[in-house]
């Protein structure tokens, strides 16, 4: 029985360490990405990084983006367009970036971002608030 308990403890430590590492990596990537530039537009818009092998993109992220209504969403294949993906430090799919009309990254979401979260970020972008959120 003791081997099982020790194994559980080891897995607990590994999972906790992985979660901390992921938080750190996302925070660092976000800090590096905020302010990165792309094409200007008349309204805030979303850069949506995806790939053919991204299941969550199809099952979760695309339905969430569809709920946003008349918002410009620029879909980018993160593997085909590596230069742009690297500029926004895309290390996971999906990644969504809320861009200001001037073409600057205001909010970066690594991983699935819900529709209400994106709506809130877009509202902030329209209101000129430049607050970084997770």
């Amino acid at each position: 029985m003791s081997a099982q308990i020790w194994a559980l403890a080891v897995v607990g430590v590994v999972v906790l360490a992985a979660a901390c590492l992921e938080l750190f990596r996302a925070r660092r990537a976000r800090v590096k990405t905020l302010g990165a530039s792309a094409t200007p537009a008349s309204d805030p818009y979303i850069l949506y990084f995806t790939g053919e092998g991204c299941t969550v993109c199809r099952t979760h992220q695309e339905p969430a983006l569809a709920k946003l209504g008349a918002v410009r969403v620029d879909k980018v294949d993160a593997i085909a367009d590596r230069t742009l993906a690297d500029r926004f430090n895309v290390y996971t799919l999906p990644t969504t970036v809320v861009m200001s009309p001037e073409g600057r990254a205001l909010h970066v979401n690594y991983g699935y971002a819900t529709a209400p979260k994106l709506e809130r970020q877009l509202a902030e972008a329209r209101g000129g608030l430049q607050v970084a959120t997770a």
Partner: protein
Amino acid sequence: MATQVVDHSALKVNQTGIIATVLVAFIGSAFYRPALLLIPLLAIVLLLGTFAPNLALFKQFYFKVLKPRGIVKPRPVQDRPEPHNFAQGLGGVFLVVASAFLLPVPVIGLALALLVAVLAFVNLAFGYCLGCQIYFQLGKRGVIRAS
């Protein structure tokens, strides 16, 4: 590479099978040590299923038993099977390593097997597939042709 239709119910059944087998081996081995044999057997099942999908035990159980009887409803999604196969193969490799440790250092062997079950659970419950993310990273670096 074009997308195909992937039945996500088959993937979910596969993940459930992995979690259940590891848990039975993990808990069972506390009372009956030969239950650990389930871990190398699961490694074989996963690796066989990666290279020959018609030998994927849990998926075949879904396609031949659960789906025809309406026990589990199909969930077809436009997707690519390669990242999922890659993730399954990775799980199989981890279980092979776990099997190698089971007798000399059972804590490491059990921990690795449990980690595979945890990742399968994360995929099942939250849709986050670590193996698929590794596949994407390898594709991005040009190690494998991912797009």
